[in-house]
């Protein structure tokens, strides 16, 4: 019997990263912009998707993958808007993984423009998993407080876009949007920031324009 040291030096999440890369290639060859939405529970991810469905109507085709621990509720809300939606129930797991997306992928229509993936509401674990998205958007809602970026750094470091949501509630709350924004930008200077409200509609036109531009970039490369 001999002792042997095997040096691996391999990402622990390598198999997730490989699956995610394959999903990204597949989606982008079909000119689909995939967006991974991250936030704590109740920051307004589903409500934002409902508002985007209204704004994209007649202009672009979208589909939604909903991640939740239990229930079909979010997918039902999206389907009620006439948008195809798939619910992944993780049965306890706190995040989506690339292979869960891979299982749904064959059912997704090939002729859509946008695929939104709403992650499980959790500002910690989902940040560690690439799902094959082109854009990662993190939502931080006014009622949650402006101190969250430094408390949950990985979500903000890995995101491309920060959405400061529920801006319509700001007159009633001590939420300091500039502080939240400055803290997030200190963690990740490349973040694009939008102040939005799905209720009043603030910021949504800008966000939709941004999504169209990002999608055109993919389409021009594909």
């Amino acid at each position, binding site marked *: *019997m*001999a*002792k*042997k*040291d*095997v*040096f*691996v*030096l*391999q*990402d*622990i*999440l*390598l*198999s*997730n990263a490989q699956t995610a890369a394959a999903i990204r290639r597949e989606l982008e060859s079909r000119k689909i912009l995939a967006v991974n939405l991250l936030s704590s529970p109740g920051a307004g991810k589903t409500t934002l998707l409902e508002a985007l469905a209204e704004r994209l109507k007649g202009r672009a085709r979208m589909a939604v993958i909903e991640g939740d621990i239990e229930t079909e509720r979010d997918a039902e809300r999206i389907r009620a808007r006439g948008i195809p939606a798939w619910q992944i129930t993780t049965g306890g*797991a*706190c*995040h989506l*993984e690339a292979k869960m997306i891979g299982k749904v992928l064959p059912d997704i229509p090939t002729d859509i423009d946008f695929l939104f993936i709403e992650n499980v509401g959790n500002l*910690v*674990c989902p*940040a*560690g*998993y690439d799902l094959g998205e082109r854009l990662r958007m993190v939502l931080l809602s006014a009622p949650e407080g402006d101190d969250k970026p*430094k408390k949950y*750094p*990985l979500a903000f*470091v890995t995101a491309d876009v920060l959405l400061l949501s529920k801006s319509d509630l700001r007159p009633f709350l001590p939420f300091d949007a500039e502080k939240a924004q400055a803290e997030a930008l*200190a*963690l*990740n*200077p490349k973040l694009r920031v939008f102040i939005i409200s799905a209720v009043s509609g603030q910021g949504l036109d800008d966000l939709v324009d941004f999504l169209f531009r990002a999608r055109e970039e993919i389409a021009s490369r594909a």
Partner: protein
Amino acid sequence: MHELSLVASMFETLLEQARLHKARRITGVRIQVGALAGVVPELLESAFDSYKKGTIADGAVLTIVKPPFTIRCRACGDETVREDFALACPACASTDLEIVHGMELVLEKIEMETDDPLPAP
């Protein structure tokens, strides 16, 4: 709290390497967990210890190396270890930075016992 899922992913590689090297058992595993990886080392240890039972790595010792959060400035070349996660160069205040260490979730080394004959003394 996704440490168990990380351990499950790690065991895919452990079992594959054990097969490849015809290991009789795995005695030690060394991993790197960056300060910004979003993982609690203590929880990873507990998850590893419960997952390994009854596997080829039953009894294996998990060693966790924690690379400190380190950034390098692309403007002035300064490299610093930081306590907080703020991304601005302390030397020149530039925000054009790259994260050198702190994001790691890396399986570094597997120690195993194999059936290979011992090398001649």
